[in-house]
């Protein structure tokens, strides 16, 4: 076995082992429950770097093992290393490790900590498996696992009924999409067992079949990446703990959809891409507009994630696969950072509301980190957000979608400034409360600072406005100067506009012009109520008809039993009683001879004599 395959096995085994060990030991020693998983996550991170280095050095594309055979088709366990899988693997391992560190301090003294860390480890394992999979069946297995871990982690707070409701909703919506994945798998299998992604790329399948397959996969992508109409689960998923939201629902799991569309880009026909683009655009708009109205800071971030995902899908639908993948990577960094910072804010100032959070004076480092992350979200130059957004914009050919892109960009700026208003007091008239020194544990702010620093452009390219390295690696068309300048102007102008709105205190009141679209309510009425009605009807049918049938049979049984008892009591017992009665009579009769009554003696003697005479006659 080559060293690379050994490392892959270790990479996958590490978080899984950590998860199991934490579950078993962690219950006994709570202190170990936080330490072991963090060590496991760190080792996973190291392994991911090693794999990345090794595979680029040896330029080995894949490792694989024989798995099983059905009929004549052989299915293998395979892991691929290319420009898509390796970066995502590193990002997943990094953010997982940072979230582990963060969780050490976030969950102080929580009794069910072992359960949390083990599920987190399981998630890391599943996500890494998903990223590296070279086989669609294998990928599907990890896809499902990731959905299950998401369910477990959203519903982590068992006492909250909203949490379990949100977990159920996310899982069911995911399942709807997974049916699409299964249809695609079935079609591919019937085409001759074409499950290896590398072999799929080179195979020839007719356009119609490709459309069918890609539409099915698109369904899975929509549900996993929370696109319209499967988007309602993502804001509700914020019921889970904040580190979970950071890891799963901003950086990794929801990005799996975008990752998949990029991996399987050769399957997507223009017709499918059209659908993807429209749905992505709608989602982006919905996400952005809702983010303008939202008061809860975590839900605001969730709507923002929704909007960015929509943008990614829209760009992918315009055949800009690699560009959306790059944005996926950069979005993962600053969105995870924003979620973690939101967790710090909520914990320290005990408030969910964006407006209420902005009334206290914040420590300087918090202000700086939040600003960097928000600017990255906006896509301001000097951040990676700008770089990736530029690449995306360059890929979009159609004017309509470009227009939507810039509109969404503006909306992102507006809600990002809302977030910024939490730490930077825009309106001078408002006096800030002076709170004493706020002490935040090192474990909490270290990941945040790392992610904020990672959002700065310096590490990726010398120029703040374009990245040569990125366009080389992913074969992206670099945006030309006009586009770049337009981008800078647009973003800066938007920022100024937002700044003036924030100064007037208007920024939090933008949302009041927007109507509240109760999409969830609509879903409830059209889909959920009829299903419950059918379930109720079948239950009533079961109770009435089937149970009545059972009762009838029981009744017949009972009647037979009663008849048997009557028969036994009266007839059989009657016969025995009769025999006993006869015996009693005979006994009574014979007793006369020894009863001690003189007169009966005389009587019987006379009778005997008479009979004797009669006989002797």
């Amino acid at each position, binding site marked *: 076995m080559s060293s690379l395959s050994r490392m892959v096995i270790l990479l996958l085994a590490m978080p899984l082992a950590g998860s199991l060990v934490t579950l078993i030991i962690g219950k006994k020693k709570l202190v170990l429950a936080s330490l072991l998983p963090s060590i496991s996550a760190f080792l996973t991170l190291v392994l991911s770097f090693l794999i990345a280095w090794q595979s680029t050095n040896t330029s080995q594309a894949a490792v694989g093992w024989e798995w099983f055979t059905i009929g004549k088709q052989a299915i293998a366990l395979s892991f691929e290393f290319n420009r898509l899988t390796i970066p995502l693997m590193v990002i997943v391992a990094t953010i997982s490790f940072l979230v582990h560190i963060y969780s050490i301090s976030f969950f102080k003294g929580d009794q069910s900590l072992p359960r949390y860390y083990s599920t987190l480890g399981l998630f890391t394992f599943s996500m890494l498996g998903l990223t590296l999979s070279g086989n669609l069946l294998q990928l599907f297995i990890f896809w499902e696992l990731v959905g299950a871990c998401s369910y477990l982690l959203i519903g982590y707070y068992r006492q909250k009924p909203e949490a379990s409701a949100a977990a159920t909703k996310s899982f069911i919506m995911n399942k709807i999409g997974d049916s699409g994945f299964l249809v695609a798998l079935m079609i591919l299998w019937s085409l001759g067992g074409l499950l290896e992604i590398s072999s799929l790329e080179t195979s020839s399948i007719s356009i119609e079949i490709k459309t069918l397959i890609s539409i099915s996969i698109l369904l899975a992508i929509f549900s996993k990446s929370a696109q319209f109409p499967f988007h309602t689960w993502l804001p509700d998923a914020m019921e889970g703990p904040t580190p979970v939201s950071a890891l799963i629902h901003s950086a990794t799991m929801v990005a799996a959809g975008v990752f998949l569309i990029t991996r399987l880009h050769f399957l997507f026909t223009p017709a499918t891409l059209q659908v993807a683009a429209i749905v992505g655009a709608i989602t982006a708009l919905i996400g952005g507009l809702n983010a303008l109205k939202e008061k809860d800071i975590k839900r605001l971030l969730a709507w923002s994630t929704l909007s960015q995902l929509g943008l990614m899908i829209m760009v992918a639908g315009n055949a800009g696969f690699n560009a959306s993948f790059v944005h996926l990577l950069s979005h993962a960094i600053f969105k995870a950072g924003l979620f973690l910072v939101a967790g710090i804010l909520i914990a320290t100032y005990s408030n969910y509301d964006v407006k209420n959070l902005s009334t206290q004076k914040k420590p300087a480092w918090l202000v700086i980190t939040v600003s960097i992350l928000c600017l990255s979200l906006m896509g301001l130059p000097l951040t990676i957000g700008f770089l990736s957004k530029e690449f995306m914009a360059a890929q979009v050919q159609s004017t309509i979608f470009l227009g939507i892109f810039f509109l969404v960009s503006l909306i992102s700026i507006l809600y990002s400034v809302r977030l910024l208003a939490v730490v930077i007091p825009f309106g001078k008239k408002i006096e800030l409360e002076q709170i004493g020194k706020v002490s935040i544990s090192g474990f909490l702010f270290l990941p945040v600072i790392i992610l904020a620093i990672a959002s700065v452009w310096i590490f990726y390219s010398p120029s703040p406005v374009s990245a040569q390295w990125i366009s080389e690696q992913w074969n992206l068309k670099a945006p030309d100067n006009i586009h770049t300048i337009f981008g800078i102007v647009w973003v800066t102008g938007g920022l100024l506009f937002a700044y003036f709105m924030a100064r007037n205190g208007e920024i939090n009141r933008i949302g009041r012009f927007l109507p509240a679209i109760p999409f969830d309510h609509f879903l409830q009425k059209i889909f959920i109520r009829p299903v419950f009605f059918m379930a109720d009807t079948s239950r009533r049918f079961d109770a009435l008809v089937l149970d009545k049938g059972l009762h009838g049979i029981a009744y017949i049984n009972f009647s037979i039993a009663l008849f048997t008892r009557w028969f036994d009591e009266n007839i059989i017992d009657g016969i025995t009683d009769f025999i006993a009665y006869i015996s009693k009579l005979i006994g009574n009769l014979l007793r006369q001879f*020894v009863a001690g009554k003189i*007169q009966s003696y005389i009587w019987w003697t006379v009778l005997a004599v008479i009979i004797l005479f009669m006989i002797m006659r």
Partner: protein
Amino acid sequence: MNPIMSLPVLATVLFCIGLLVVIFKKNTIMILIGLELMLNSANLNLIAFSSYRADADGQLLILFILIVAVCEAAVGLAIALRVYRYYQTSIPENISELKETAS
């Protein structure tokens, strides 16, 4: 019916009635009365057949039966008195020391 024949019939009836009295009456004295009835019925029979056979022996037998009946009545009554004194009851049913009990 023959006038001679009527006597044995009467004797039979009288005998049966005497037997019934002995068996079904709940007094020791009544038993003795029944006995007398039975003896008298025997006498009736005798007189009938003595007349039929023109034999005086029958009538003499009647005389002796009469004598024996007297003796038996006297002794019987004495016994009845003793029994009454001993068992404090004149109901024959209650005098059941000879009764076989389950033992």
